[in-house]
């Protein structure tokens, strides 16, 4: 078996272990509530308003073994998760899993474009700043990055809205305006993926593509600037320590051009600490993208909790959301780890050795 596949398999196994651990913790939280309350997780769609009858609750408790020990209950719960029955949410008026899946493309669009924008920008700008510290670019970078890390995204988003939406009218919040939505429905626009930027290209509607970008610009900027600044600062610190290492001095003495030295030798060496930082803050990236979605009224995954929190308690939706967002974080960590293994020669060699 090729070593890289081995690495992927081992990494998948750790992801799986994390998932087991976190779902066990989640279900331990659920266990704090009495069985009658836990029965809500499995209550079927009830017609009309009103509470489920006592008999129904008892039968649900019986059927899903809700009065048995923790591990038994946990295994039954996992079984129901695996078979795709994540419960019915009374506030959303639909089943939880389809509700989450339907909204995923919007969140993915936002997170993917932001990461594609901020990782290269953060690495390159932090790298240049750290390679020649205390120069003009470094000063500019440090003040911008400091501003970026200390401004909370929700405040930054208000400034963006004031400037780019109200004053200039370049960008807009929400996913699309109502007229476009009606026009698309009438003109037979096919939703292949659910991500508007991709769908518009597949439908050969470049006007809709531009429109989608217009609506995505501000969320992407808000999400990118914060993590660009974080990543850039970490990169700068890593380069700062790496700059005068012996291997760099030796390579310079052998006459390797400065540019090649920077981008081929040093950059590779600093990828490990920087991408690890990103992987560790994966959960904060996911949280921030939810926050950005809510502020700019994008109908992403976070819409589920926004709706579920308006009014009555909705246990299936919030538990489903928790499990789903943990899965998102774990996959993001996995992707960043694999990326790092591909790019960093040391990690790659270690993989080959182990």
């Amino acid at each position: 078996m090729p070593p890289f596949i081995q690495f992927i398999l081992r990494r998948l196994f750790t992801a799986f272990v994390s998932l087991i651990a976190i779902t066990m913790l989640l279900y331990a939280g659920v266990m704090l509530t009495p069985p009658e309350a836990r029965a809500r997780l499995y209550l079927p769609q009830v017609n009309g308003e009103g509470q489920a009858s006592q008999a129904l609750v008892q039968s649900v408790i019986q059927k899903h073994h809700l009065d048995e020990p923790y591990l038994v209950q946990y295994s039954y719960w996992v079984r129901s998760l695996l078979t795709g029955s994540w419960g019915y949410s009374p506030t959303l008026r639909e089943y939880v899993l389809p509700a989450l899946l339907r909204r995923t493309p919007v969140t993915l669009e936002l997170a993917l474009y932001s990461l594609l924008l901020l990782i290269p920008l953060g690495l390159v700008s932090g790298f240049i700043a750290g390679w020649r510290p205390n120069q003009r670019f470094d000063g500019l970078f440090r003040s911008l990055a400091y501003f970026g890390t200390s401004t909370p995204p929700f405040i930054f988003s208000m400034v963006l809205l004031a400037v780019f939406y109200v004053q200039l009218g370049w960008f807009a919040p929400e996913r699309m305006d109502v007229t476009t939505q009606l026009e698309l429905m009438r003109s037979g626009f096919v939703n292949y993926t659910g991500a508007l930027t991709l769908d518009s290209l597949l439908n050969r509607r470049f006007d809709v593509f531009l429109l989608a970008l217009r609506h995505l610009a501000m969320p992407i900027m808000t999400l990118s600037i914060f993590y660009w600044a974080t990543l850039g600062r970490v990169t700068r610190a890593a380069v700062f320590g790496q700059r005068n290492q012996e291997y760099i001095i030796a390579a310079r003495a052998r006459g390797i051009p400065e540019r090649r030295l920077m981008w081929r030798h040093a950059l590779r060496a600093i990828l490990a600490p920087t991408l690890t930082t990103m992987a560790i803050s994966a959960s904060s990236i996911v949280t921030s993208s939810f926050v950005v979605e809510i502020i700019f009224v994008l109908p992403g995954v976070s819409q589920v909790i926004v709706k579920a929190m308006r009014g009555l308690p909705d246990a299936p939706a919030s538990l489903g959301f928790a499990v789903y967002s943990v899965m998102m974080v774990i996959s993001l960590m996995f992707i960043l780890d694999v990326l790092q293994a591909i790019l960093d020669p040391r990690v790659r060699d270690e993989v080959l050795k182990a």
Partner: protein
Amino acid sequence: MRRRRRIFISRWQNWLGLALVLTFTIAALAAPQISPPNERTVGAFKKVGRSSDMTPHPPSEEAILGTLPGQTDVFHAIIWGARDAMIFGLSVAIGAFIFGSLFGAVSGYAGGAVNNLMMRIADAFLTFPALAGVVFLQQIVAVTIESMGGSYWFNPDTYGDMVYFPFTPPPFAVFLMKTNPVLISLILFSWMPIARIVNTQVITLKNTEFIQAGRALGAGPVWIIHRHLLPNAIGPAIVLAARDVGSSVILQATITFIGLGGASPWGALLSLGRNWVIGPGGNLLATWWIFLPPTLAILLFGVGWNLLGDGLAEALDPTASINQNPT
């Protein structure tokens, strides 16, 4: 100790951080003197005019920083919000600090398979987005209260939950009503870095000679953890906790702003005045007293604690020298 103090006072950034944190501390402690509440004050919100008047008024004698729609005094909410922020931030930081360092120390001291398992659990917590945790805990509280016979609503307009019992609530329900799910979930999701740092320190320290000597003299594990390991591992953990104070208050304000609870007065100010934050023509400064005061308060609170954390990190780092190149 003197060397540490000299390192700390040698940079103006540390002074700025200290000054900001002190300002907020004074505002928090002296809130009743700086801005006395009147009879129409609920929490951090003081009404100074007719509540039906939905136009925000610029600064006046009565309200130094103007009013929100509904005539809520901005200045009062900023000062009393500092008290809330301080209590909230310090509770999260201290909670995370105590739990994290205990977890890390015990796990590192135990070593071997136990250490592996405990650190795996800490890693599992890292994969949990705080926002999902907030919602999840809030729902658990809601469901528990409903199963005790009470009614629970989450009301985004009052930034919190409302509980009604048709009879005297049982003590456990009262306890649940008093707990703050956002506070608990922020503690639950910020102790892991502290645990990890303490853990690494403990593992490296465990095999050093003075610990071995202590063992040979018959010191028990509790004594060793308490007397030797924690004091040595505590510096970096304090730095992380100081930064947590600022970041947790920012996260709390964010959660309040997007309407998922948290009850941060600063976040609520922005959210209550949301129709006026951006004035006509996209001018953020047309009704500046709605946008600027809470924004600056949140921003400076975060910056202050971060600078203080950076300064402490340098001062507590035994390898730092006084005139080193600032990074």
